[in-house]
């Protein structure tokens, strides 16, 4: 009987079974940032422990970084304290840090892949729930809390319970204007925000196989929004092409040996899954969230749900009240205040290209504040090199520096009052974008761009220029090197 990638990686990284019955798993790569580590480093100091594998630990700053003025010290002294703490901890414990002055700085889930740190068959941990992003490479990547960060710093290991595997096959051709973001929002809507608890999601099928690494990262990134702590795609030639030549990827003969090992880590054809579902790509339309969790979404042409017919009437009516929407209201045409393209979900070069394709020659509606925030310094440089920044600025967008920005309220980029924000990020929770009454609608970067121009939630399919090629799956040539 064959094995899944998850089982293979799990078995290879198992140190032993702990007296608690949990598995002690070796962690191949530990990524750290300023938010979830200061208390962990203090715990190490208190107990006199070192970082076990500083050679397998890398840091950057992302959540609190201002995207407009990065001068030190930051105006926000709390943020300044956090970045200073990470700099001191990295120095004291010998951990490499891609700090504010580094051209490798960026959102932790953008730079890991970009630098070739993220590789197939690895176990990866990071104190951030969107660590599932790295699964796009066929890694098994866990989002963890600060006490587990302490464990991984001190021992390069974690204590874990085994996961079941649900295979989600996406087959068929995505229609124009429908993207990886729509696929994952649809999956979460169908399976529920708690549907993946206890599971790793294996994304498979010909639609996923045709996707670029950027698109696969968008899918894996939001696994946790469906309750699955881990999501992955089996590594293939697309994965290897992306990795070749990156700073931390193996070189020459070592790369050839790596490819053979990586290929062997993919799930076997006769692997057995705990659950198996299929989604037809051609049935999908652009998806928009209307509520206060990423599972509360509808197609752009649909009306907001509600009334006694909905499954959980209380949570639907609670969400409608917060969002100031009423049952049956069309989502298309809803007036917006803010448009945000960025985040670890959709802040990569191909995302910026798709948004630029929509806004080129158009202008942001006068009442809309619109932000483009590249996921990393490298994404920013690559976008500038092909003139995307000029397209955005000419269209009335603000072009910002790399960071988490408006995905969460930890830096100066925040909603005010009950503003409505169309966002390419991953969470529409109450208060997520920094205002306790702010309203977030999640969608693809192209849909955000379309809404920014229209000033209302709009159907990007009606704004896309005719294209000789399919819009999705640009292939690895479309990605930052």
């Amino acid at each position, binding site marked *: 009987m064959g094995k899944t990638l998850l089982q293979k990686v799990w078995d290879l*990284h198992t*140190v032993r079974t*702990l*007296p*608690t019955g*949990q598995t002690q798993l*070796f962690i*191949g790569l530990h990524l750290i940032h300023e*938010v*979830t580590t*200061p*208390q962990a480093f*203090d715990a190490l100091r208190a*107990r006199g*422990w070192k970082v076990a*594998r500083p050679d397998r630990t890398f840091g950057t700053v992302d959540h609190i970084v201002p995207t407009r003025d990065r001068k030190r010290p930051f105006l926000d002294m*709390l*943020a300044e*304290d*956090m970045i200073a703490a990470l700099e001191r901890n990295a120095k004291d414990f010998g951990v490499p840090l891609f700090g504010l002055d580094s051209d490798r700085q960026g959102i932790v889930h953008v730079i890991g892949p970009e630098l070739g740190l993220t590789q197939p068959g690895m176990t990866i941990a990071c*104190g*951030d*729930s969107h*660590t599932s992003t790295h699964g796009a490479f066929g890694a098994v990547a866990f989002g*963890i*809390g*600060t*006490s*587990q960060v*302490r*464990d991984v710093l*001190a*021992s*390069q290991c*974690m*204590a874990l*319970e085994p996961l079941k595997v649900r295979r989600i096959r996406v087959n068929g051709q995505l229609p124009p204007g429908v993207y990886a973001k729509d696929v994952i929002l649809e999956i979460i809507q169908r399976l529920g*925000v*708690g549907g993946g*608890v*206890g599971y790793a999601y294996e994304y498979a099928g010909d639609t996923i196989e045709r996707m670029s690494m950027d698109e696969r990262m968008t899918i894996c990134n939001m696994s946790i929004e469906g*309750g699955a702590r881990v999501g992955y795609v089996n590594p293939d030639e697309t994965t290897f092409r992306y990795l070749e030549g990156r700073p931390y990827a*193996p070189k020459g003969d*070592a*790369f050839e*040996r*790596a490819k053979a*090992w990586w290929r062997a880590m993919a799930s076997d054809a006769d692997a057995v899954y705990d659950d198996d579902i299929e989604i037809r790509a051609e049935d999908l339309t652009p998806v928009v969230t209307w509520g206060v*969790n990423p599972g509360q979404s509808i197609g752009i042409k649909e009306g907001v749900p509600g009334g006694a017919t909905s499954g959980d009437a209380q*949570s639907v009516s*609670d969400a409608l009240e917060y969002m100031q929407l009423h049952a049956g209201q069309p989502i298309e045409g809803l007036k917006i205040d803010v448009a945000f393209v960025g985040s670890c979900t959709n802040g990569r070069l191909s995302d910026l290209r798709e948004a630029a394709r929509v806004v080129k020659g158009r202008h942001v509606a006068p009442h809309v504040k619109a932000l483009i925030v590249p996921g990393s310094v490298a994404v920013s440089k690559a976008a500038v090199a092909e003139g995307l920044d000029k397209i955005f600025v000419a269209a009335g967008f603000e072009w910002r520096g790399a960071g988490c920005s408006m995905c*969460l*309220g*930890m830096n100066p980029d925040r909603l005010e009052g009950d503003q409505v924000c169309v966002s390419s990020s991953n969470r529409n*929770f*109450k*208060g*997520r974008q*920094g205002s*306790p009454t702010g309203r977030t609608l999640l969608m693809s970067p192209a849909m955000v761009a379309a809404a920014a121009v229209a000033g209302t939630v709009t159907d990007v399919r009606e704004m896309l220029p005719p294209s000789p090629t399919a819009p999705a799956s640009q292939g690895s040539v479309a990605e930052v090197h």
Partner: protein
Amino acid sequence: MEALRITRVEGRAIPVRGVDIDTDRILPARFLRAVTFEGFEEHVFIDDRAAAKKAGALHSFDQPPYQGASVLVVNSNFGCGSSREHAPQGLHRWGIRAIVGESFSEIFYGNSMMIGLPCVTASHEHVEALMAAIERDPQAQVTVDLAKGTCTAAPRDGTPYTFPVSMPDHVRDAFATGAWDTTGLLLENYEQVNATAARLPYVSGFTS
């Protein structure tokens, strides 16, 4: 460091109703700008509390009878979303020592375990009955017995109500033995860790 052994939690209880309550609601991101967890009890549910006040109501965390409660009672998929340990840290610092719920997000559950905050699950009916009991009498004594796998609510003017609660065996054992504090365990027999690393070709950069 000797970790605490936890086999039962007793005290008054506090309900927070609602499904899919995410960690951004338990502890909004803007309060994560800190290098310690000190004072986090002040931020717990802060936006929900403000919203309730604005609507002319009081969130349970602001209602006087629930102050000093040590058992939190919640519905399903509690703690979904962000992996921030700041959320269970805030609840623990507020005084919560056990959580009874229909279900929990995986990361929240693990984070709570790591800081010695047991979460147990019970059926929807039992959770509803417990919430109703403590809403009727916030002074009711609630006992979560990890060893027996039961939760008992004892209202002052009625008969005690006992129902089964569950947690995985290894979690129960970890709390019973103090092994929930895992770092020490992971550092034992470190030669086994090195042996595992040595069989992973990427650790040596695929040099052979």
